[in-house]
């Protein structure tokens, strides 16, 4: 028999927990849901657009009946649970329905706080919490004129906007002198107030409600209805509808009544368990490490951890969340996150453009973003939020950070405003996905997370350079509430992020993939195509002489030492040191091409010769012939050193200042065969005319009269990035040492599939300089480690295979006539 799980509260946090559970351990429990509301699970956040007439109820349903049926979940709507017998593990609903449980989730949410003033029970005084409240407001808007919203926070302003759109005359009453004081500083609040006044909302600030007064009754049997509001200072204004939006109170009565420990909320541990370990709690009803919650992003993180625990994976812990807010009032762009007020010890960077109505403030401490308020232009909200979550050092771009991502040195595509782009604008170049497709999928399939959008549309699923844009579209389409957690897990097989896994490999001395799976509690038996290649690399990098490379965890190109082409044939690129070749080599290449009927021979962008269209079974023979002429694998297929491009330099060129070709050859001889997180390209130019394009390479050298300029972190590709100047050096030997040290730092610290450009942007050039340029001792140690790992790496994979290694992999197992 399956264990029984009961969820009390059919709302956003509770049902998300079931969804997460269904994803990782489908059918583990016999599940029953009790919901007090007479509806299926809907997106509460979008009640504001429903009130404003921008959406219908059907559009905000998250899970309809068929979802519950498909997942074999019994749903009792309209049945409020009134008691829990923890001894016998039975819950009882108002209508007498009983059910027993092995595990219980309390997700009872919260309710609007109603000010304890006389008249609060009059007809027409409502909160703003559920669809019932919305229908009462809509009803009032058809019959009455004056609406008063008490509370100038997020919820109150969204209510005011909705009622205004429904044709009511709206006054917002607020106790303080500034709006949304929990998200905005004074200048932003003033701008917001002005825009809302322009749309027609009235404000009554610093007003304390004293009493709600009834209207004169037409008929005696009608229940008394609100007619006006009186304030402490004696003023009175007409009110046919009063919306209380002054805060929320966690729903904890049920938990309290059965003896579960509560303070302001239901107290839970990092695994979302209450003091009774069979009873979990998630959502706005919980109190975690002293905090209460009022936004969905942290609740969704809780849901994930809770589901993990229920699935008995038991590795996730909830450690609190950083949140951001957006106001969902059409036409007003507002974003706020983190510590937006600043003050003691914090610096403030402020940008103001009154004519455009733009105000931006970043709160910064020690060159780290701690908070942000954006008004009028929120395009960069998600970027700032990311800088904040990842604790990025902004020293290198502090002067331009206020101008947004578009003004960064790499004016990448993320800088554009997505909402300004047309529906057919292509967002994901890799998979040819346009904006409309993404928006349609988000709306049509009710997607909430980046992963879901990737799964359904493939947008940003490949090279990932459009991730920022897709996140923006997601945010703009569904409301900016589902933020990715601080550290993204490596893949669906684990909760751990790349950096955590890497650190564990080194610290715990994990030397095999199985050891990693075990120690870090992998959720799958043997990983997937995303984590296995990464782990293989991390292990190889950590234990250069101990770890045995696992070919089955490498992408096909690295397994067969050639590049797979779209028709299943391969391309072969022999190494040509520094781009130099000889008549003999060229003859051998020509002979090979003839002998194996290789259809295309092409010179590559990295100055090598590419033989395209080689059949898999011919590969070892092709390599054998090339080996015989003295050529080895060019690793054009690997996450490894690719090529060192050079110009002819002082040997031939009239401008040349140093022997760029010679240096290029030396660098290639030192570094070939090295595995790196992503491909790694180098170039050496003989003078600043830079014919070898050294400033778009991972490591580029530009020779000058007095020595060598060393540049790092450049790449061509989808998003071109010019290098940063690392330092200037005097001798070739120094260049070699810096090159080894830089490569090793990149090998040890960048995440798998992260090229040097995004890596340097993430950790900061200042950091790289501090390790390579300023720390002489450290540099030497890094270079030393590089050279040690090269001792086992510099074997020509072609020669090994020509001699028979894995020969069978190039041959069919059997040919059937």
């Amino acid at each position, binding site marked *: 028999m399956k264990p029984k799980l009961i969820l009390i509260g059919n709302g956003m946090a509770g049902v998300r927990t079931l969804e997460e559970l269904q994803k990782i351990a489908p059918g583990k429990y016999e599940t029953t849901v009790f919901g007090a509301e007479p509806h299926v699970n809907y997106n509460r956040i979008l009640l504001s657009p429903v009130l404003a007439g921008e959406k219908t109820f059907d559009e905000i349903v998250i899970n309809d009946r068929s979802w519950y049926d498909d997942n074999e979940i019994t749903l009792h709507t309209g049945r409020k649970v009134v008691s829990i017998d923890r001894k016998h593990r039975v819950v009882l609903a108002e209508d007498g329905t009983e059910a027993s449980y092995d595990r219980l989730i309390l997700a009872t949410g919260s309710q609007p706080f109603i000010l304890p003033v006389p008249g609060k029970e009059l007809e027409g005084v409502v909160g703003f919490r559920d669809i019932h409240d919305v229908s009462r407001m809509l009803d009032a808007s058809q019959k009455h004129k004056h609406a008063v919203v008490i509370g100038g926070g997020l919820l109150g302003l969204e209510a005011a906007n909705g009622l205004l759109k429904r044709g009511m005359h709206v006054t917002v009453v607020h106790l303080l002198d500034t709006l949304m004081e929990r998200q905005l500083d004074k200048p932003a609040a003033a701008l917001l107030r002005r825009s809302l006044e322009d749309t027609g909302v009235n404000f009554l600030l610093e007003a304390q409600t004293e009493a709600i007064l009834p209207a004169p009754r037409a008929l005696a049997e009608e229940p008394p209805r609100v007619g006006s509001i009186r304030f402490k200072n004696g003023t009175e204004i007409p009110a046919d509808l009063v919306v209380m939006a002054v805060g929320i109170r966690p729903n904890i009565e049920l938990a309290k009544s059965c003896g579960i420990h509560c303070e302001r909320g239901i107290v839970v541990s990092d695994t979302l368990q209450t003091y009774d370990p069979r009873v979990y709690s998630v959502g706005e009803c919980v109190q975690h490490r002293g905090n209460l919650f009022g936004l969905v992003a942290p609740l969704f993180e809780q849901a994930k951890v809770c589901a993990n625990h229920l699935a008995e994976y038991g590795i996730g812990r909830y450690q609190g969340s950083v949140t951001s807010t957006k106001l969902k009032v059409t036409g007003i762009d507002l974003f706020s996150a983190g510590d937006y007020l600043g003050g003691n010890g914090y610096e403030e960077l402020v940008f103001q453009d009154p004519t455009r109505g733009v105000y931006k403030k970043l709160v910064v401490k020690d060159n780290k973003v701690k908070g942000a308020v954006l008004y009028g232009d929120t395009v960069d909200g998600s970027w700032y939020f990311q800088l904040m979550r990842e604790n990025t050092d902004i020293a290198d771009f502090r002067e331009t950070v206020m101008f947004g991502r578009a003004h960064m040195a790499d004016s990448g595509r993320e800088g554009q405003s997505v909402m300004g782009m047309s529906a057919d604008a292509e967002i994901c170049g890799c998979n040819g996905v346009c904006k409309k497709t993404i928006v349609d999928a988000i709306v049509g399939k009710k997607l909430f997370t980046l992963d879901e959008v990737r799964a359904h549309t493939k947008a940003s699923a490949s090279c990932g350079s459009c991730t920022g844009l897709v996140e923006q579209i997601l945010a703009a389409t569904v409301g900016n509430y589902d933020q990715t957690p601080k550290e993204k897990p490596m893949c669906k097989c684990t909760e751990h992020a790349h950096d955590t896994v890497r650190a564990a490999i080194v610290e715990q001395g994990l030397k095999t993939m199985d050891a990693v799976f075990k120690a870090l509690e992998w959720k799958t038996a043997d990983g997937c195509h995303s984590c296995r290649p990464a782990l293989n690399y991390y292990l190889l990098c950590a234990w250069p002489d101990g770890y045995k490379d696992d070919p089955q965890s490498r992408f096909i190109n690295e397994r067969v030492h050639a590049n797979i082409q779209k028709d299943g044939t391969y391309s072969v690129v022999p190494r040509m040191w520094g781009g130099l070749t000889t008549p003999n080599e060229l003859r051998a290449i020509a002979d090979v091409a003839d002998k194996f009927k290789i259809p295309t021979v092409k010179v590559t962008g990295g100055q090598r010769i590419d033989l395209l269209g080689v059949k898999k079974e011919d590969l070892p023979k092709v390599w054998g012939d090339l080996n015989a002429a003295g050529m080895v694998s060019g690793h054009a297929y690997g996450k490894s050193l690719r090529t060192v491009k050079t110009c002819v330099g002082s040997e031939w060129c009239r401008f040349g200042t140093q022997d760029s070709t010679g240096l290029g050859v030396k660098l290639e001889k030192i570094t070939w065969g090295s595995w790196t997180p992503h491909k790694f390209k180098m170039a050496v130019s003989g003078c600043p005319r830079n014919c070898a394009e050294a400033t778009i390479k991972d490591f580029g050298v530009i020779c000058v009269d007095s020595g060598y300029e060393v540049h790092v972190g450049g790449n061509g590709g989808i998003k071109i990035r010019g290098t940063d100047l690392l330092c200037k050096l005097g001798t070739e030997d120094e260049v070699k040492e810096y090159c080894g040290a830089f490569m090793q730092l990149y090998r040890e610290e960048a995440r798998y599939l992260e090229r040097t450009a995004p890596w340097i942007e993430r950790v900061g050039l200042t950091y790289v300089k501090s390790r390579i340029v300023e720390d002489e001792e450290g540099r030497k140690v890094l270079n030393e480690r590089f050279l040690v790992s090269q001792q086992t790496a510099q074997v020509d994979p072609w020669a090994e295979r020509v001699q028979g290694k894995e020969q069978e992999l190039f041959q069919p*197992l059997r040919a059937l006539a």
Partner: protein
Amino acid sequence: MNDWLPIGTLDDIPRLGSRVVETVFGDIALFRTAADEVFALRDRCPHKAGPLSQGIVHGKRVTCPLHNWVLELESGAVVAPDVGCAQRFEIKLEDGRVYLARS
């Protein structure tokens, strides 16, 4: 009745790897899982005909080397949200020998 063709031994196929059997109708890929089960699918991805035998095997699935579609080895079905199916073939394992059903 199945007519079983001997193909080779289990040891011929690398664990979490694959080998192909050539036929006049095109290649058939044989996959071996971590648990030493063997499955056979036509070596043609339903997406753009990528050679599945060159993919990465994990659990009872294989990821196509060309664009990362994931297929169930047991049924040949493509894992959602992508859709499609690769033809599957019956396999029998006996005393470490692999047999393919002639159908």
